[in-house]
């Protein structure tokens, strides 16, 4: 390899490695801001902000959803299996919202410890399967989010 090419190759490696290190340091510094949501445990530990809205993510506890029949108001409990937090929300829930499902709520922590959400987003997991397979798994005792929402035609 002639010296000129070696020099060029080294500068290419330098660009890529330099950018890699710079970005890694920048991302490390912004780590906290890159978290899209806090978990109930982080909230319990006092890591979440109290003065401004933030997002909280977790699983909807089975049997915890109670709707007000008069309005769109809904109450449910979120868990990360370690800590639980009660959430209140008034609005339309996404298609994938159901008990056992992972969701992300945006809102504010009230002084009494409940979370008042103004937005609720469903977080889909990475599992894809036909309804029959889900039924078979459920019969075999595998824990899956409630699939009653979708009924095949």
């Amino acid at each position: 390899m002639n010296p000129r090419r070696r020099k060029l190759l080294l500068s290419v490696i330098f660009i890529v490695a330099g950018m890699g290190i710079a970005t890694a340091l920048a991302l490390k510094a912004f780590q906290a801001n890159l978290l899209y949501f806090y978990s109930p445990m982080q909230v319990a530990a006092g890591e979440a902000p109290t003065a401004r809205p933030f997002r909280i993510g977790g699983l909807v506890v089975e049997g915890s959803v109670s709707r007000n029949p008069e309005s769109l108001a809904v109450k449910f409990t979120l868990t990360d299996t370690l800590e639980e937090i009660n959430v209140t929300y008034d609005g339309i829930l996404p298609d994938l919202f159901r008990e056992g499902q992972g969701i992300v709520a945006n809102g504010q922590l009230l002084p009494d410890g409940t979370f008042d959400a103004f937005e609720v987003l469903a977080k889909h997991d990475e599992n894809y399967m036909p309804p029959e397979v889900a039924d078979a798994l459920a019969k075999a005792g595998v824990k899956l989010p409630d699939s009653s929402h979708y009924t095949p035609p």
Partner: protein
Amino acid sequence: MFEYFYKYGSPRHFYDLSKMFVPWLGGICLILLIAGLTGGLFFAPPDYQQGESFRIIYVHVPSAWMSLFIYVVMASAGAISLVWKVKVADALARASAPLGASFTFLALATGSLWGKPMWGTWWVWDARLTSELILLFLYLGYMALQTAIDDRRTAARAGAILSLVGVVNIPIIHYSVEWWHTLHQGPTITKLDAPSIHPSMLVPLLIMAFAFMFYYAAVVLLRARYEILENERNSAWVYELTEQRKG
């Protein structure tokens, strides 16, 4: 070995050779596309949670994979062109950018259409979506740079450096769902464990991924051929070629 490489890597040989490949690649792409789409839209069962809406995966996931793959091709071609001054690499990088941008846009648009009914929102600023948007801007920036600089060799060099600077974004996009809490789900297939998708849904998806790959291969060669004609417009062989065509 290098002599062989330089001979067949010369613009002229590439121009002749690529002509043979394009129809084959295009034909295979068409067959795979028909197979993948019928498999995905008619034979694959609905998802246990998302119902029929999950079928957007057959466009969304292959587009997203291609958006990353094409960027890696573009940056590697950029590095080869910077260090070894291979002219064909310049043409391939330049031809790749609009294709990569299109696939990135397709991944973002289909994701957004799916996100509204499933998540409850068109867009969120989580790490996966934001880094993919940055990828779109990198492609657009590369294309803008190519049109802004008149001298094609300078443009190729500037573009190569830009694409190398942006390559750091690729692992960020891929690992964003593992490194940070994101609304976007984790990887279903590109992980060390077994894929968490039923084989009846996975097979059409893989066929679609190959279809997109062949589409890219066919179109990038076609585009690179035009880039080469444009780059070499003052060379003797292009002159001969145009004289021959004139008859």
